[in-house]
């Protein structure tokens, strides 16, 4: 049962379509990330959920209650907390008042407000800082204030709009895990917006990849990495070698095709979408750098064996990274240290057909 249902959502700004008729379900207790490049509509989708934007078409249902079709529900009545990209911590209020602001607006006793606020401040690790002004806090601490403020009213849904983008790299990595464990501990359903694929993979249960107003693929981090739906997703998540080509032969086996590329007459690939793989179709043969196998001597394999010259070699700590020229096509490979070859030397490449994907 989906906790948040987005149905056929359409949002335009003037003539520009920001969110193009998308459907999306968020399961209760799940942390879902909207991932995509800037301008893909991810923030607009989030703001529609929050009620900060009014979509032209479609409906949003939170916990069984429609936010739009039975009259517009005000953001504050949707039972959600939100963390903004720039934290939006009010600089003229002390930390305590920032967090307690929403509680004070409800008709509850001062004592409960006091207790609840202290509780949340402790939860995010800000105990004892309630009397400070935001300008006296570090960026990470301000971030926690924003988080505490979003959590103080016990929201059913937590919305996070690129909450870590203003922090420095080291802090950002720590905060990812911290936010995830906090949200999981509280059992809140969360929608997280980011353009950082590593962040998305760490923090989310599921990722919805967006591009120019559409949701391109939804799945776990592993699914999206291992089985990208198209070239855009494969390119956006991790690194991928793309070799453009054309399908030359109908599949012999059930799930394999041959592709003619610029560097070779025949590259054998597996594919799930056999039906689309008709001869003559333009496709991209795609393989992750870590799946490219590099040998000094020709290996035993019969197919997908190529010779290439190392153009660049980089030492990246736990492995080496090669840029290999195969008949004019540059292929990136991630290889173990044991490989002695240097720039300018010849190597043999094996592109395992099981790991070669055909993407459109």
């Amino acid at each position, binding site marked *: 049962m989906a906790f948040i249902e987005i149905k056929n959502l359409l949002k335009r700004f003037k003539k520009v379509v920001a969110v193009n008729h998308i459907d999306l379900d968020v399961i209760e207790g799940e942390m879902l990330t909207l991932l995509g490049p800037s301008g893909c509509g991810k923030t607009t989708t989030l703001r529609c959920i929050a009620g900060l934007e009014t979509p032209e078409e479609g409906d949003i249902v939170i916990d069984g209650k429609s936010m739009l079709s039975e009259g517009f529900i005000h953001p504050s009545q949707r039972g959600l907390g939100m963390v903004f990209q720039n934290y939006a911590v009010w600089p*003229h209020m002390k930390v305590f008042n920032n967090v307690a*602001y*929403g509680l004070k607006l409800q008709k509850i006793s001062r004592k409960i407000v006091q207790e609840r606020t202290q509780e949340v401040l402790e939860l995010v690790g800000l105990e004892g800082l309630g009397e400070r002004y935001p300008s006296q806090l570090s960026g990470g601490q301000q971030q926690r204030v924003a988080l505490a403020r979003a959590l103080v009213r016990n929201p059913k849904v937590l919305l996070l709009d690129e909450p870590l983008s203003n922090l420095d790299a080291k802090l950002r990595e720590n905060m990812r895990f911290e936010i995830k464990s906090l949200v999981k501990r509280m059992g809140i359903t969360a929608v997280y917006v980011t353009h950082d694929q590593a962040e998305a993979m760490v923090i989310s249960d599921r990722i919805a990849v967006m591009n120019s107003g559409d949701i391109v693929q939804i799945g776990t981090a592993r699914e999206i990495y291992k089985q990208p739906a198209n070239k855009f997703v494969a390119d956006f998540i991790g690194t991928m070698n793309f070799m453009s080509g054309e399908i030359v032969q109908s599949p012999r086996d059930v799930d394999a095709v041959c592709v003619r590329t610029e560097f070779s007459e025949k590259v054998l690939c597996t594919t799930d979408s056999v039906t689309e793989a008709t001869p003559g179709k333009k496709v991209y043969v795609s393989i992750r750098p870590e799946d490219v196998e590099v040998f000094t001597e020709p290996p035993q394999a019969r197919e997908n064996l190529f010779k290439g010259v190392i153009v660049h070699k980089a030492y990246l700590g736990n492995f080496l990274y090669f840029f290999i020229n195969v008949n004019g096509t540059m292929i990136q490979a991630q290889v173990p240290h044991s490989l002695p070859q240097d720039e300018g030397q010849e190597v043999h490449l094996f592109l395992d057909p099981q790991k070669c994907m055909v993407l459109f």
Partner: protein
Amino acid sequence: MSRGNIILAAFLWLIVAFFILYPLSILLQESFTITGTDSWGISNYLEFFKDTYYLRVLGNTLLLSMFVLLTTTVFGVPLAYILARYRHRGKTIFTALILLPIVLPAFAGVFAFIIFFGKYGTLNLLLMNTGLIETPINFIYGLHGLVFVQSLHMLPFIVLGLSAGFTNIDPSFEEAAEVEGASGFWRFITITLPLCTPSYLAGAVLVFLWPFTDWLTPMILGQTNLLPSVAYINIAYHFTDMHRKYMGIVAVVIAAVFCISLFLVARWWVEKKKYTGLSKGTTSEGRVIEPGPLLKMGAYAYLLFIAFIVLLIPIVLGLSAFSRRWVFEPFPTYWTLENFRLILLESPILIKNSFLYSGLALVFGVAFGLPAAYIIARSRVPGKDALDFVITLMLAFPGIAVGVGYMLAFWDKIPLARYWIIMPLALFARRLPWTFLLRRPRKYRARADSELFLPYRCLCCSRACSSA
């Protein structure tokens, strides 16, 4: 740091010293002089603060300042909000109209309002003709009229500062409050307005200081028991009575000291509290909302009302300028060019002088402002910050203090005031920070203290707008 820069800086300092510091020090010195002797003492000041009359004058001025600030704030906050946030037609033209008073000389407003709101002015006569009232209502003469005229003159400063504030606030500050459940008005009071205090204050301090500077409007409206007017009357009318003259000078110095201290306090506070630095803007135009139809009508009516009052100034003056013996009638009946003929025939010298002095002052201003901006922004000459500081202080300095200072300083010892060149020189000195500010490179203006200059910068915009 090159030799040339040092020489240039020294030269600029020389100009500042001679045309600003020297006359002001003479002014200060004179204020300590005991009547009839050559000795110095604080007796003048003691007398000022012992005399209930002067204390009352000081109190009146403070009271007037508060009233003016209150009025401009009450009218300015909704005005700024409408201009900054509502999506409506004719935004530019309304902005231009509402900012118009700064382009107009302060005294133009008084004359126009006397004609319109005066005892036998248009409004009273119209009301009496329709039988609504029997005897004319005193709209303008008195403290309330003074508050009205000065408020209208200073309204743009508040509106400019605030609307810049409203536009520059990061929208997410308000959105966060919206999500937390704050209603529109509460959100405005607890979030929007407090975040705008620095930009508000920048304008407010100038508004508050205006009654300490403006002596002419009170005099025209018959309110002479205010600090600058008292100072003017004492100095200008009682030149034979040396004692009263010194008391006048004391009043000038007190007004000037008050202005400068308040200005500095405000500047310090604004710099301490610059909230805007904390936000990272996401949209350039800020939050613009589409008001409901009722609200929109109200906003329009309000804009039209203010615009009408502002437009009264040139319209009434224009009518009056082209008419003759416009008394006891709501609108002029006898049209003539006589007034202009008189001006052009009998005193074309006034116009010539005006252009000559202002033009020369402008030449001085550019000649000083360009190198000064260069030294302060680009070089590392020691003491450049002090130069910046002194020049900036002139912003808050009452014109009357400059005038009196010049009169005292350049009469006996350095007889510059015997030649007409003193006029453009005085105008130049008076408006020194303006040349300097306007010639600052953009990069430099983006500094923190620019908050306080914001209204000034906007001024330039508004001026261009108003010619549209």
